[in-house]
C-alpha cells in the first residue's frame, strides 16, 4: 500500500471513506423511494406491525440503493464525461468499479432476502424485478440505445409504492397500479425538462436523450403531450379507495400548475430560453418534484384522517 510513503504525499490513495460508499447508493433517490414506498404501505387497507413496516421500507430503500450502486458501476464512463456526475465516487477515483459492483450485488441479494422474510414473497419478487429492470433493462440497454430510455426506464422508479402496497396486502390492486402509473407517467416530463437545460452534458456523453436525437423543439412538444397524458392517471386515483376530496383538490391544483408549466415550456423557443438561462425549464423541473411529493402527501393525509372518519369519500 502507498500509505507508507516516506514524504507523506498520500493524498491519491484510491481509498474510499464510508461516505463514498453511502454516495454509491444515491441517497437522494433513496429518500424519494422511502417516501413513496412508505405511502404505498400506509394507505393499504391491511395494517402492518409498525416494526415490520419499518423494516420493509428500509429494505425496499436498500434495494433501490443497491441498484444505484450497480448503475454507477455500469455508467462510470458516462459519469466521467458529464459535469453533473463527474464528482461521483467512481469517476473521481475514490471507489474502484469492482467495489461498487460487489456492494451492489451483495446489497441486492440482502435486500430481496430480507424483504421476503419481513413481508412476503411477492414483494421480494417485485423488488428483485425492479433492481433487474433498473440495472439491466434501463442502464445497460435502453439508456444508451433509444431516446425513449426514460419513458420505459421510468418504470423502475414507479415500483416502490406498489411494493409497499404488496408488503401490506400481499397482492396487486387497482390502487397500486395507479400509484405506479402516476410516477411512470410523471417521469418523462420531469426528466425532459431537466434535459433541456443539461443538454450539453448528455451530448458530450453520447447519451441519446430526446434533446440530443430529436432536438429541443420536439422535446418541448413531448413534455406537453406527456403532461396531458399524466393528468387522467393522477386524477383517477382520487376516485379509488385510497383517494378522497383532499387528494382530489390537491391533484386538481397540481395538475393545473404542471399543465401551465408544460404549456409555458412548449410556447418558448430556444433563443428565449437561452437568453434567460432556462428559467422556466428549471422552475418546471423543481415544480415537478413538488408535484409528486404533494400527490403522495395527499394520499397519506387521506389515510391518516380515516381513523377520525374524515379521509376518503
Amino acid at each position, binding site marked *: 500500500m502507498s500509505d507508507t510513503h516516506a514524504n507523506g504525499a498520500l493524498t491519491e490513495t484510491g481509498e*474510499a471513506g464510508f461516505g463514498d460508499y453511502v454516495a454509491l447508493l444515491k441517497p437522494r433517490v433513496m429518500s424519494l423511494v422511502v417516501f413513496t414506498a412508505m405511502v404505498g404501505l400506509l394507505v393499504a387497507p391491511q395494517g402492518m406491525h409498525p*416494526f415490520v413496516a419499518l423494516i420493509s421500507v428500509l429494505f425496499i430503500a436498500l434495494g433501490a440503493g443497491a441498484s444505484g450502486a450497480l448503475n454507477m458501476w455500469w455508467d462510470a464512463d458516462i459519469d466521467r464525461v458529464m459535469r453533473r456526475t463527474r464528482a461521483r465516487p467512481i469517476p473521481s477515483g475514490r471507489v474502484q468499479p469492482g467495489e461498487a459492483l460487489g456492494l451492489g450485488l451483495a446489497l441486492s441479494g440482502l435486500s430481496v432476502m430480507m424483504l421476503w422474510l419481513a413481508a412476503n414473497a411477492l414483494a421480494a419478487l417485485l423488488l428483485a424485478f425492479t433492481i433487474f429492470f433498473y440495472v439491466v433493462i434501463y442502464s445497460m440497454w435502453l439508456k444508451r440505445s433509444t431516446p425513449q430510455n426514460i419513458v420505459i426506464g421510468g418504470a423502475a422508479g414507479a415500483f416502490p409504492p406498489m411494493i409497499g402496497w404488496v408488503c401490506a396486502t400481499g397482492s396487486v390492486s387497482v390502487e397500486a397500479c395507479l400509484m405506479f402509473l402516476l410516477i411512470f407517467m410523471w417521469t418523462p416530463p420531469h426528466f425532459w425538462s431537466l434535459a433541456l437545460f443539461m443538454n450539453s452534458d448528455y451530448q458530450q456523453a453520447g447519451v441519446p436523450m430526446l434533446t440530443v436525437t430529436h432536438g429541443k423543439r420536439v422535446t418541448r412538444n413531448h413534455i406537453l403531450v406527456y403532461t396531458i397524458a399524466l393528468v387522467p392517471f393522477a386524477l383517477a386515483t382520487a376516485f379509488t379507495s385510497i383517494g378522497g376530496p383532499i387528494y382530489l383538490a390537491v391533484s386538481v391544483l397540481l395538475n393545473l400548475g404542471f399543465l401551465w408549466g408544460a404549456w409555458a415550456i412548449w410556447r418558448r423557443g430556444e433563443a428565449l430560453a437561452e437568453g434567460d438561462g432556462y428559467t422556466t425549464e428549471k422552475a418546471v423541473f423543481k415544480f415537478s418534484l413538488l408535484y409528486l411529493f404533494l400527490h403522495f402527501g395527499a394520499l397519506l393525509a387521506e389515510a391518516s384522517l380515516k381513523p377520525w372518519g374524515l379521509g376518503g369519500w
Partner: protein
Amino acid sequence: MTLRIEHELHRRRFGRNLGLGLALAVFVALVFGLTVVKVKRGDPMQAFDHVARPELVPPQGEGEQ
C-alpha cells in the same frame, strides 16, 4: 524514536471501519427485532430439528372410536 504519522488516510480508514461496524450492529438489531415480532405474533414459523410440531399430533378425541 517512534515514528507515528497520523495521516488523513488513517482517519478515513477509521471512519470506514466505524461505519461498517455500526451498519452491522444495526442489521443484527433489525433481524433480532424482526424475529421477536414474528415469534410474538405467532407467525407460521417452525424448524424441523428438535422442535415439536403440534400439527402432527392428532386432536384429542380423534381416532378413539
